[in-house]
Protein backbone atom coordinates (compact mmCIF):
# COMPACT_ATOMS: atom_id res chain seq x y z
CA UNK A 1 0.00 0.00 0.00
CA UNK A 2 1.45 3.35 -1.00
CA UNK A 3 1.13 6.47 1.14
CA UNK A 4 -1.35 7.87 -1.40
CA UNK A 5 -3.50 4.74 -1.12
CA UNK A 6 -3.49 5.03 2.68
CA UNK A 7 -4.55 8.68 2.35
CA UNK A 8 -7.37 7.73 -0.06
CA UNK A 9 -8.51 4.97 2.28
CA UNK A 10 -8.58 7.38 5.25
CA UNK A 11 -10.29 10.04 3.14
CA UNK A 12 -13.07 7.69 2.00
CA UNK A 13 -13.53 5.99 5.38
CA UNK A 14 -16.80 6.62 7.30
CA UNK A 15 -15.03 8.86 9.86
CA UNK A 16 -13.27 10.95 7.20
CA UNK A 17 -16.40 11.29 5.10
CA UNK A 18 -18.68 12.22 7.99
CA UNK A 19 -16.34 14.99 9.17
CA UNK A 20 -15.87 16.29 5.62
CA UNK A 21 -19.61 16.41 4.94
CA UNK A 22 -20.69 17.55 8.41
CA UNK A 23 -22.52 20.73 9.29
CA UNK A 24 -20.70 21.38 12.56
CA UNK A 25 -17.92 18.86 13.33
CA UNK A 26 -15.41 20.22 10.86
CA UNK A 27 -15.75 23.79 12.16
CA UNK A 28 -15.61 22.69 15.80
CA UNK A 29 -12.52 20.54 15.20
CA UNK A 30 -10.88 23.41 13.31
CA UNK A 31 -11.59 25.72 16.27
CA UNK A 32 -10.12 23.17 18.71
CA UNK A 33 -7.06 22.89 16.47
CA UNK A 34 -6.43 26.64 16.58
CA UNK A 35 -6.91 26.71 20.38
CA UNK A 36 -4.53 23.75 20.77
CA UNK A 37 -1.87 25.48 18.67
CA UNK A 38 -2.34 28.71 20.65
CA UNK A 39 -1.80 26.89 23.95
CA UNK A 40 1.11 24.81 22.68
CA UNK A 41 3.02 27.46 20.70
CA UNK A 42 2.17 30.16 23.25
CA UNK A 43 3.61 28.28 26.21
CA UNK A 44 6.60 27.12 24.15
CA UNK A 45 7.24 30.79 23.32
CA UNK A 46 7.12 31.75 27.02
CA UNK A 47 9.84 29.20 27.77
CA UNK A 48 11.91 30.20 24.71
CA UNK A 49 11.69 33.88 25.69
CA UNK A 50 12.82 32.95 29.21
CA UNK A 51 15.89 31.20 27.77
CA UNK A 52 16.63 34.32 25.75
CA UNK A 53 16.26 36.47 28.87
CA UNK A 54 13.27 38.37 27.47
CA UNK A 55 10.49 37.19 29.81
CA UNK A 56 10.00 36.03 33.42
CA UNK A 57 13.66 36.69 34.17
CA UNK A 58 13.02 36.77 37.94
CA UNK A 59 12.15 33.05 37.83
CA UNK A 60 14.72 30.28 37.35
CA UNK A 61 14.67 28.55 33.95
CA UNK A 62 13.66 25.22 35.54
CA UNK A 63 10.87 26.96 37.51
CA UNK A 64 9.38 28.38 34.31
CA UNK A 65 9.73 24.99 32.62
CA UNK A 66 7.90 23.27 35.49
CA UNK A 67 4.99 25.72 35.40
CA UNK A 68 4.63 25.94 31.65
CA UNK A 69 5.29 22.37 30.47
CA UNK A 70 1.95 20.84 31.64
CA UNK A 71 0.10 23.45 29.58
CA UNK A 72 2.36 22.75 26.61
CA UNK A 73 1.51 19.05 26.84
CA UNK A 74 -2.23 19.82 27.07
CA UNK A 75 -2.01 22.06 24.02
CA UNK A 76 0.01 19.42 22.18
CA UNK A 77 -2.60 16.70 22.82
CA UNK A 78 -5.49 18.94 21.70
CA UNK A 79 -3.51 20.02 18.63
CA UNK A 80 -2.54 16.49 17.58
CA UNK A 81 -5.99 14.93 18.13
CA UNK A 82 -7.82 17.71 16.26
CA UNK A 83 -5.14 17.86 13.55
CA UNK A 84 -5.40 14.11 12.99
CA UNK A 85 -9.17 14.36 12.57
CA UNK A 86 -8.84 17.26 10.11
CA UNK A 87 -6.24 15.31 8.12
CA UNK A 88 -8.47 12.23 8.19
CA UNK A 89 -11.29 14.17 6.51
CA UNK A 90 -9.07 15.66 3.78
CA UNK A 91 -6.25 13.11 3.51
CA UNK A 92 -6.23 12.81 -0.29
CA UNK A 93 -6.20 16.59 -0.77
CA UNK A 94 -3.48 16.98 1.88
CA UNK A 95 -1.29 14.36 0.20
CA UNK A 96 -0.94 16.67 -2.80
CA UNK A 97 -0.87 19.97 -0.84
CA UNK A 98 2.63 21.55 -0.94
CA UNK A 99 2.00 23.69 2.17
CA UNK A 100 0.95 20.60 4.15
CA UNK A 101 4.05 18.66 3.03
CA UNK A 102 6.27 21.58 4.05
CA UNK A 103 4.48 21.74 7.40
CA UNK A 104 5.16 18.04 8.04
CA UNK A 105 8.91 18.58 7.57
CA UNK A 106 8.80 21.62 9.89
CA UNK A 107 6.88 19.63 12.54
CA UNK A 108 9.50 16.88 12.41
CA UNK A 109 12.22 19.50 13.00
CA UNK A 110 10.18 21.14 15.78
CA UNK A 111 9.90 17.72 17.45
CA UNK A 112 13.61 16.94 17.19
CA UNK A 113 14.67 20.32 18.63
CA UNK A 114 13.35 19.77 22.21
CA UNK A 115 14.43 16.10 22.11
CA UNK A 116 18.03 17.18 21.52
CA UNK A 117 17.73 20.15 23.92
CA UNK A 118 16.46 18.05 26.85
CA UNK A 119 19.08 15.36 26.31
CA UNK A 120 22.00 17.74 26.10
CA UNK A 121 22.30 21.29 27.47
CA UNK A 122 19.12 21.14 29.61
CA UNK A 123 20.51 18.22 31.66
CA UNK A 124 22.84 20.66 33.38
CA UNK A 125 20.23 23.39 33.85
CA UNK A 126 20.59 23.32 37.64
CA UNK A 127 24.22 24.36 37.22
CA UNK A 128 23.99 27.06 34.55
CA UNK A 129 20.76 28.69 35.72
CA UNK A 130 22.54 29.69 38.96
CA UNK A 131 25.08 31.74 37.04
CA UNK A 132 22.21 33.73 35.43
CA UNK A 133 23.90 33.14 32.08
CA UNK A 134 22.10 30.95 29.58
CA UNK A 135 24.50 28.94 27.37
CA UNK A 136 24.60 29.95 23.71
CA UNK A 137 23.44 26.45 22.71
CA UNK A 138 20.25 26.88 24.77
CA UNK A 139 19.63 30.32 23.27
CA UNK A 140 20.10 28.87 19.80
CA UNK A 141 17.56 26.13 20.58
CA UNK A 142 15.12 28.86 21.73
CA UNK A 143 15.53 30.87 18.52
CA UNK A 144 15.18 27.73 16.38
CA UNK A 145 12.02 26.78 18.31
CA UNK A 146 10.43 30.24 17.90
CA UNK A 147 11.28 30.26 14.18
CA UNK A 148 9.94 26.72 13.63
CA UNK A 149 6.64 27.25 15.43
CA UNK A 150 6.04 30.55 13.65
CA UNK A 151 6.72 28.82 10.30
CA UNK A 152 4.44 25.89 11.22
CA UNK A 153 1.55 28.25 11.94
CA UNK A 154 2.14 30.19 8.71
CA UNK A 155 2.40 27.02 6.59
CA UNK A 156 -0.72 25.62 8.32
CA UNK A 157 -2.65 28.72 7.29
CA UNK A 158 -1.17 28.46 3.78
CA UNK A 159 -2.75 25.00 3.28
CA UNK A 160 -6.03 26.76 2.42
CA UNK A 161 -4.37 28.65 -0.42
CA UNK A 162 -3.27 25.64 -2.45
CA UNK A 163 -5.46 23.24 -4.39
Amino acid sequence: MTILQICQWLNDSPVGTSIRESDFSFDLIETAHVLGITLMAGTVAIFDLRLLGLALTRDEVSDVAGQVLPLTVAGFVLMVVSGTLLFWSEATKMYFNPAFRFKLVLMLAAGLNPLIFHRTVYRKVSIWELSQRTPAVAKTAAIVSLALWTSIIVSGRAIAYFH
Partner: protein
Amino acid sequence: MKLRLAVFVAGASLLAAVPALAHHSFSAEFDGHKPVRLVGALTKVEWTNPHSYFYIDVKDDKGNVVNWGCEGGGPLALSRAGMKRGDLKIGDTIVVDGYLAKDGSHLIDARRVTLPDGRSVYGGSPGDGGPPDTSATSKK
Protein backbone atom coordinates in the same frame (compact mmCIF):
# COMPACT_ATOMS: atom_id res chain seq x y z
CA MET B 1 10.91 46.02 28.45
CA LYS B 2 10.47 47.73 25.09
CA LEU B 3 11.38 44.52 23.32
CA ARG B 4 8.91 42.53 25.41
CA LEU B 5 6.18 44.97 24.49
CA ALA B 6 7.19 44.74 20.84
CA VAL B 7 7.02 40.94 20.95
CA PHE B 8 3.60 41.11 22.60
CA VAL B 9 2.23 43.58 20.06
CA ALA B 10 3.60 41.51 17.18
CA GLY B 11 1.99 38.36 18.60
CA ALA B 12 -1.32 40.08 19.22
CA SER B 13 -1.52 41.47 15.71
CA LEU B 14 -0.71 38.06 14.23
CA LEU B 15 -3.59 36.54 16.20
CA ALA B 16 -5.94 39.32 15.15
CA ALA B 17 -5.10 38.59 11.52
CA VAL B 18 -6.47 35.05 11.69
CA PRO B 19 -9.78 35.18 9.80
CA ALA B 20 -12.72 34.19 11.94
CA LEU B 21 -15.08 32.84 9.32
CA ALA B 22 -13.53 32.40 5.92
CA HIS B 23 -11.24 29.54 5.11
CA HIS B 24 -9.30 31.67 2.68
CA SER B 25 -10.00 35.13 1.33
CA PHE B 26 -11.98 35.57 -1.87
CA SER B 27 -9.23 37.58 -3.53
CA ALA B 28 -6.61 34.86 -3.05
CA GLU B 29 -8.22 32.83 -5.82
CA PHE B 30 -10.89 34.85 -7.60
CA ASP B 31 -11.15 38.11 -9.50
CA GLY B 32 -13.96 40.38 -8.26
CA HIS B 33 -13.82 42.33 -11.55
CA LYS B 34 -14.68 39.28 -13.66
CA PRO B 35 -18.28 38.34 -12.94
CA VAL B 36 -19.66 35.41 -14.91
CA ARG B 37 -22.97 33.58 -15.29
CA LEU B 38 -22.82 29.89 -16.07
CA VAL B 39 -25.83 27.79 -17.08
CA GLY B 40 -25.41 24.07 -17.32
CA ALA B 41 -26.31 20.56 -16.29
CA LEU B 42 -25.02 19.37 -12.94
CA THR B 43 -22.49 16.52 -13.30
CA LYS B 44 -21.10 16.18 -9.78
CA VAL B 45 -21.65 17.55 -6.27
CA GLU B 46 -19.05 17.61 -3.51
CA TRP B 47 -20.97 18.61 -0.39
CA THR B 48 -17.79 19.08 1.62
CA ASN B 49 -15.85 21.16 4.14
CA PRO B 50 -14.25 23.60 4.02
CA HIS B 51 -15.76 24.33 0.58
CA SER B 52 -18.43 22.64 -1.49
CA TYR B 53 -18.01 22.15 -5.22
CA PHE B 54 -20.66 21.85 -7.93
CA TYR B 55 -19.56 20.75 -11.39
CA ILE B 56 -21.63 21.69 -14.42
CA ASP B 57 -21.34 21.07 -18.16
CA VAL B 58 -21.45 24.41 -19.95
CA LYS B 59 -21.62 24.96 -23.71
CA ASP B 60 -19.22 27.63 -24.98
CA ASP B 61 -19.68 29.92 -28.04
CA LYS B 62 -18.44 27.23 -30.42
CA GLY B 63 -20.78 24.64 -29.02
CA ASN B 64 -18.10 22.73 -27.16
CA VAL B 65 -19.09 21.38 -23.74
CA VAL B 66 -16.72 22.36 -20.94
CA ASN B 67 -16.99 21.09 -17.37
CA TRP B 68 -16.77 23.95 -14.87
CA GLY B 69 -16.16 23.74 -11.13
CA CYS B 70 -18.10 26.11 -8.89
CA GLU B 71 -16.68 26.67 -5.43
CA GLY B 72 -19.22 27.49 -2.74
CA GLY B 73 -19.44 27.64 1.03
CA GLY B 74 -19.23 24.56 3.26
CA PRO B 75 -22.26 22.42 4.20
CA LEU B 76 -23.19 24.64 7.16
CA ALA B 77 -22.97 27.88 5.18
CA LEU B 78 -25.11 26.41 2.39
CA SER B 79 -27.73 24.91 4.73
CA ARG B 80 -28.03 28.23 6.54
CA ALA B 81 -28.44 29.99 3.18
CA GLY B 82 -31.38 27.68 2.50
CA MET B 83 -29.89 24.99 0.28
CA LYS B 84 -30.16 21.35 1.25
CA ARG B 85 -27.97 18.60 -0.07
CA GLY B 86 -30.92 16.94 -1.83
CA ASP B 87 -31.80 20.17 -3.65
CA LEU B 88 -29.03 19.45 -6.13
CA LYS B 89 -29.66 16.51 -8.43
CA ILE B 90 -27.28 15.26 -11.09
CA GLY B 91 -28.57 16.34 -14.52
CA ASP B 92 -30.48 19.37 -13.21
CA THR B 93 -29.83 22.60 -15.06
CA ILE B 94 -28.68 25.26 -12.65
CA VAL B 95 -27.61 28.87 -13.06
CA VAL B 96 -24.50 29.97 -11.17
CA ASP B 97 -23.53 33.61 -10.82
CA GLY B 98 -19.97 34.06 -9.65
CA TYR B 99 -16.50 35.25 -10.42
CA LEU B 100 -13.72 33.73 -12.52
CA ALA B 101 -10.56 32.28 -10.99
CA LYS B 102 -7.45 34.43 -11.32
CA ASP B 103 -5.44 31.54 -12.77
CA GLY B 104 -7.80 31.20 -15.76
CA SER B 105 -8.89 27.68 -14.86
CA HIS B 106 -12.45 26.43 -15.32
CA LEU B 107 -13.30 27.30 -11.73
CA ILE B 108 -15.55 30.05 -10.43
CA ASP B 109 -16.54 31.29 -7.01
CA ALA B 110 -20.27 30.55 -6.79
CA ARG B 111 -21.90 33.58 -5.17
CA ARG B 112 -25.49 32.77 -6.16
CA VAL B 113 -27.03 29.54 -7.33
CA THR B 114 -30.44 29.39 -9.00
CA LEU B 115 -32.10 25.98 -8.74
CA PRO B 116 -34.48 24.44 -11.30
CA ASP B 117 -37.48 25.32 -9.10
CA GLY B 118 -36.52 29.00 -9.39
CA ARG B 119 -35.15 29.31 -5.88
CA SER B 120 -32.05 31.50 -5.72
CA VAL B 121 -29.59 30.77 -2.93
CA TYR B 122 -26.47 32.55 -1.74
CA GLY B 123 -23.67 30.05 -2.37
CA GLY B 124 -20.60 31.94 -1.20
CA SER B 125 -18.50 31.66 1.93
CA PRO B 126 -19.67 34.19 4.53
CA GLY B 127 -17.02 36.73 5.48
CA ASP B 128 -14.48 35.94 2.77
CA GLY B 129 -14.16 39.57 1.72
CA GLY B 130 -15.64 38.94 -1.72
CA PRO B 131 -17.97 41.30 -3.62
CA PRO B 132 -21.31 42.00 -1.90
CA ASP B 133 -24.29 39.85 -2.83
CA THR B 134 -26.17 42.31 -5.03
CA SER B 135 -29.16 40.06 -5.62
CA ALA B 136 -29.69 39.37 -1.92
CA THR B 137 -33.04 41.11 -2.01
CA SER B 138 -34.27 39.26 -5.10
CA LYS B 139 -36.70 36.35 -5.13
CA LYS B 140 -36.16 33.68 -2.57
